């Protein structure tokens, strides 16, 4: 349902994404993993229309270049941006209500109750302002806000970023539940967790996909580390130091 061909993104002279091909099929969970600055976020921003790109991106056969950001959202391409961008001046409940804007009668959308059920920690906080939440709670609101829009494909940008392991773990538990119903394109640095959710993953380094495979294939830590660190031998050395 999502098809990227030769996508390039650059910011001035800096090339962030240097030609990516990527597909997400119906019912699939795909992870895009890679180190800092590899171009993961830029790829997602290109898909949802927040940034310009070269190459082609098609969602359900429609050229994404012809869709506005809002239009893409209304068609069910829902992007949860990096950094847990909740509306800080709106309460939790209001955040979710704004999320329903893009729903457009899609029957498969989560109801607000379902979101509170999924993230049971949010239920008692529904009247609290987004800005007064902890990071994990904010991330739950951001994802919940996307779910009530009835995503046909959910783009998740670094959901575990800056979250304590325990919080990240419960978040990923929720993601696994979400994945049953909704296809995901997940961008993560936390490869271990990402690989547990996804069926397929691509490793992106320096704006190029350097490794692709099923989650099982990539679960081998050494392979991953090697690909990850392909251009950064010192880190590889450190890690080998670390692992003895």
């Amino acid at each position: 349902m999502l098809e990227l061909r030769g996508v390039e993104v650059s910011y001035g002279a800096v090339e962030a994404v240097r030609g990516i091909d990527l597909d997400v099929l119906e019912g699939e969970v795909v992870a895009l993993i890679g180190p800092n600055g590899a171009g993961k976020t830029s790829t997602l921003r290109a898909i949802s229309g927040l940034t310009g790109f070269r190459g082609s991106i098609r969602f359900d056969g429609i050229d994404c270049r012809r869709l506005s950001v809002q239009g893409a959202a209304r068609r069910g391409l829902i992007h949860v941006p990096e950094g847990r961008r909740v509306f800080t001046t709106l309460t939790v409940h209001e955040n979710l209500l704004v999320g329903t804007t893009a729903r457009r009668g899609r029957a498969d959308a989560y109801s607000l109750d379902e979101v509170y059920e999924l993230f049971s920690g949010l239920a008692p906080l529904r009247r609290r302002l987004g800005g007064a939440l902890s990071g994990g709670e904010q991330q739950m609101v951001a994802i919940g806000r996307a779910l009530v829009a009835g995503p046909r494909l959910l783009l998740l940008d670094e959901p575990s970023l800056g979250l304590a392991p325990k919080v990240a773990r419960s978040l990923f538990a929720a993601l696994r539940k979400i994945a049953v119903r909704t296809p995901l394109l997940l961008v993560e640095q936390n490869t271990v967790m990402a690989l547990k959710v996804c069926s397929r993953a691509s490793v992106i380094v320096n704006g190029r996909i350097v490794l692709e495979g099923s989650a099982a294939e990539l679960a081998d830590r050494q392979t991953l580390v090697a690909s990850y660190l392909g251009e950064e031998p010192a880190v590889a050395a450190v890690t080998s130091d670390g692992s003895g």
Partner: protein
Amino acid sequence: MRGQPYLWLGLFLLGVALYRQYGVTGLGDQDLINTWLYYSVIVVGFYLVFGVSGQFAFSQAAFAAIGGYTSAWATRIALFGVDSFWMGLVVGIVVTAVIAVVFSLLMRRASHFYFAIGTLGLSEIVLVLLRRWTEFTNASGDTTAGIRRASIFGFPFDDSYRQFWLWLSALAVVLLLTIWLARSPVQREAMAGRDQEVVAATVGVPTLRVRVAMFVLGSVIAGVAGTIFVHTKTFATPESFGIDLGLGIFVMLILGGLESRWGPIVGAAFYVFVPQWLQGGVLGIPGVEFTVDAFGQEHRLGDFRDIFFGSLLVITMIAFPEGLVGIGRRVKSLLLGRVHPAQRTWLSDLFGITPRKKERDRQPPPPRDDGRPPGSVGAEHPPVTGSSAPTVEGNRAPDPDGAAPAVLVADDIRVQFGGVRAVDGVSLSVLEDEILGLVGPNGSGKTTFLNALTGVVPASGSVEVHGAGVPFGKPWRVRRLGVVRTFQAPQTYIHLTCLEDVLLSAPDRTLSGMTAACSVRPAMISRERARWDDAAAALEQVGLGDVAEDPTARLSYGQRRLLELARAINAQPRILLLDEPSAGLDASETEQLAEHLRNLQREGVSMLLVDHKLDFITSLCDRIAVLELGQLVAVGAADTVFEDQRVVDAYLGVDEEDL
């Protein structure tokens, strides 16, 4: 130095004087020319306030009124027993300056927008006083008449032809001032404070003082214009300084272009002469007597003055924010086939012509689109806490050898954004001559920690540098203690040249104030030469010697990084805090950077280096501290630290079974 401003000024004055001598045939035209000069003086003052230092003020007309009426009062009662126009002028200047200082300090915490409203309020207050306080204004009805006529050595400026010379001299003096300022530290610092207030403060620019100084100077210029105005007209009414003039001043500066001292003059000429031309001719040029039937009444084109200027203002803002002078330059560069270097740059900064693009230019991938305004520092995402992350004793004691003393001691630093604890009780010391690495995953609070140390964000805890306590929230005081920092995204003042940018961080701040700029120029210039030499040397040192005179906007990303480094070197820091200096650099550039940092270390600079390129960190750092979720998880020598499983986990992800 650059350009020949004195030559241009001379030619301009000569041109106007010659025109006056041989071109002007009647008093009407002479009056219009005088009005043009009067407006030019006021608007040049506004250019300093709004154009140079970015303060959104509606108060120029009010300060003209304050200057004019005060002077009229002083000469009327012959204050100090002196009955002279010049005494009135001095009193007017002093009173204007005092009110401007007080007002500016009162407004010091006001945002741009509040500042604008505040100045509108001041204008209203002044107008009420002028209308009602007749003991002071000596007005009958609304006109204060019989004001002492300006004269010099018994030569009265009693008609428009003579008054012209007074106005021309005033404009000459004011333009000379702008030339002086442009070649002084003050203007540079004002522009830096306007564009990147936080960054400017961290390199030691006293942003508040500079802002106040510029406001006061601009207001005093308005006051002088008002004084000359009332003493040449010999009468005054409050309406002469009403909201019409206030808005007109805006129109003139914006239309003329606010990046150049010539903008006000061109804008004022446009404002004064064009409607006259549309009314039936001006300066010997026959006008267009074009009548329009609107709503059953015949109107001449010139009667549409406000619609004309209002629409022009909107069109200017939408289509050519650099104004008439900017258009002229564009045409010139088109004809001469070269691009004027600094042309669009600082305007685009002030007016954000292409903010997003620029932001991207500046930023390393991945773009940190985190909802903060462009140019704001501290783009680190606050992490969540609540985990039982292992607490590590912030080593207040020196490192194992016990030899090097700590130069910077941070104790229990906490920063909170809303419900998120971004830095959660970090205690960390930087030792003499060491490079301490600070690593951690995205969002672990590294940048926020640096922001806290340099007083850029509100924090709790304590910071001591060489034993001296550092207050939070006062970046320039931190800098004065020898602490200098760089920023995650290179923050350059893109309309300044590289040299000027580096000059901002000069540790020697003697003779860099407004007074020096306007009075002891030879001494200031020799100081400035020395500073320039240092700055040039710093640029040379990082290999940017050949682009020293280029606007920073032209630099590549890597060069901006180096420029930041040059700025830091020029500051002669004792402690240097570096925020991801290698981000966006390729391997060879990174190596070059490492070399510079080693050199600095040899010169005795202690460093705190935040980065995520681990090879870069390990090759440079004596010790490494690891931050996660706002807390320290490990501090020690590189090999020990990276043996720590938690550190490895922090980078690759934690498997739930591992915990």
